């Protein structure tokens, strides 16, 4: 089959690799119909994520048709499914509490050592995202082996377009969880740092949860424009002082809840032994810790901080004093995708949430390397690229 494989920094290629087969009884194999390039895929593309190996197949936002099932899968051939990017078993203590991204049972035992050393505990496995998160081949391919297919993938009713439901795999639940973690009360003002896909879905979610006002912060005009479409007020941080603007816009109180989505839709795990490398690449050193600092300083006293943005190592100058003195609450974490999928599918079916607005480009899987370059080079115009299998090249 054809698959998008990583070969090094800024080097991704379409490789011919063997088709996946059923290995464990709960597996299924899906034939991918649509798969997206995620902002966090760019971290792999830029070479920031350790434990990548040449030939690793990328992609963790994907959906398709079930073509093969293991003995204990509950899916049927021919069903269309969206697959969560987190691999969770559904039967451990954490899954029982719907903390799916904490499930340790999809991560091979040998791969658990790094996270246990760094974070004290292992995390869930992810598709197409380095060997630290399991080394599973991802969805930017014609076929994917999906473990725990009896509990992970959600079946999509016939007649619903791929483009409407594809983002259930990751960014829509991530934006929704971010808003939920902001514990929005009716009448609240919510400020969202970052208008990437997660930030934009947070904006929509915050309004659905009763926010009176949402203030979106970014520097890409096109992305701010999209936030405006959903009713958000905007601050371009290249033109205005964010703190001053927020104070004035909220009568000196500050936003009731702040959401840091500047990590785009990132889920990368950056280990401390590469922190230096990352800092040298000005990655941790610039906007990311800056946005969480700014969010904490701007948040009203007794307010809530929600952080879908990913931090993997250590952050300097975290304003712990402001955090304590103002009595803030912080909620964060990888997304418990499986928990949110059913309700969000309903919301999409009832047209309460718009997902397709995000897609700026559609192209054949074969053109994925071009897609990575475009997404990397043109963040203003390229909001989301969806790759399709069996699509004719436009060129």
């Amino acid at each position, binding site marked *: 089959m054809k698959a998008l494989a990583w070969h090094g920094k800024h080097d991704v290629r379409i490789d011919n690799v063997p088709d*996946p087969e059923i*290995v464990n009884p709960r597996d299924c194999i899906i034939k991918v119909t649509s798969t997206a390039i995620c902002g966090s895929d760019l971290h792999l593309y830029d070479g920031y994520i350790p434990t990548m190996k040449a030939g690793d197949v990328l992609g963790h936002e994907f959906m398709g048709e079930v073509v093969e099932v293991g003995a204990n899968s509950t899916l049927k051939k021919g069903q269309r499914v969206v697959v969560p990017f987190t691999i969770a*078993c559904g039967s451990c203590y954490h899954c029982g509490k719907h903390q799916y991204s904490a499930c340790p*049972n999809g991560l*091979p035992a040998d791969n658990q050592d790094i996270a246990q050393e760094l974070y004290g505990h292992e995390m869930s*496995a992810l598709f197409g995202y380095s060997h630290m998160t399991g080394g599973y081949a991802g969805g930017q391919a014609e076929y994917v082996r999906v473990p*725990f297919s009896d509990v992970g993938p959600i079946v999509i009713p016939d007649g619903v377009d791929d483009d409407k439901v594809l983002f259930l795999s990751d960014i829509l639940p991530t934006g929704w969880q971010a808003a939920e973690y902001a514990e929005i009360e009716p009448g609240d003002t919510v400020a969202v740092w970052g208008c990437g896909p997660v930030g934009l879905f947070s904006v929509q979610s915050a309004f659905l949860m009763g926010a009176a006002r949402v203030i979106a912060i970014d520097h890409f005009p096109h992305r701010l424009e999209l936030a405006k479409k959903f009713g958000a007020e905007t601050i371009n941080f290249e033109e205005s002082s964010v703190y001053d603007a927020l104070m004035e816009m909220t009568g000196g109180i500050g936003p009731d809840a702040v959401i840091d989505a500047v990590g785009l839709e990132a889920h990368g795990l950056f280990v401390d032994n590469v922190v230096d490398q990352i800092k040298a690449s000005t990655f941790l050193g610039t906007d990311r810790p800056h946005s969480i600092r700014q969010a904490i300083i701007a948040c009203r006293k007794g307010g809530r901080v929600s952080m879908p943005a990913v931090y993997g190592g250590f952050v300097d100058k975290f304003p712990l004093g402001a955090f304590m003195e103002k009595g803030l609450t912080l909620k964060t974490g990888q997304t418990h995708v499986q928990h949110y999928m059913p309700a969000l599918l309903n919301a999409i079916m009832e047209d309460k949430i718009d997902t397709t607005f995000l897609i700026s480009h559609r192209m054949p899987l074969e053109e994925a390397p071009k897609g990575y370059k475009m997404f990397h080079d043109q963040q203003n115009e390229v909001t989301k690229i969806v790759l399709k299998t069996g699509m004719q090249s436009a060129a």
Partner: protein
Amino acid sequence: MTQPRDDTRDDAPATASKRGDAAVEALSGTIAEAQGSHILGRAVTINKPADELFAFFRDFANLPSFMENVVSIDVLDDTRSHWVVKGPIGRVEWTARVTEEQPGRLIAWTSEEGAQIPNSGRVEFKPVEGRGTVVTATILYDPPGGIVGKVIAKMFQREPGIQARRDLRRFKQLMETGEVATPAMNPKQFEEMGL
């Protein structure tokens, strides 16, 4: 100088002691026919009833399905079994004998005379309300080649502490999900990668 112990010790498990010899000393007394100069202890919580976990574990023929370095276990009779294990410098073998057994609760063993790696230990199963069972393994062993052998083993990732941690994770996966997690793309690759 003797260390006062019983009245001043904290409640931490002896295997977490910063003094390795203290742990060996403290735990030797809890293991029947203890032998081995090094100790390791690991605990894992598995969301299944203790009886079920014990039953699976007690059938030693099941153990290679989650113990990576075990090549084979031949059950000789009700209490004795012959183990062939991949070591850092080749295969090692021993015959183990069950020294204590409380169904659903505890199993302890010791290696018989002539073992290439003399060892002994116990595995306990403790039910925890709402969370399943805490499985605690405590193993005493003589590393092959003494301390040098231990370093070599660590280099090759066959250090018993690392192995025990991984084996317990796989035991948890197998019991909770019916599978051992693998990124393999097909059964042949799974075979090549090992557990």
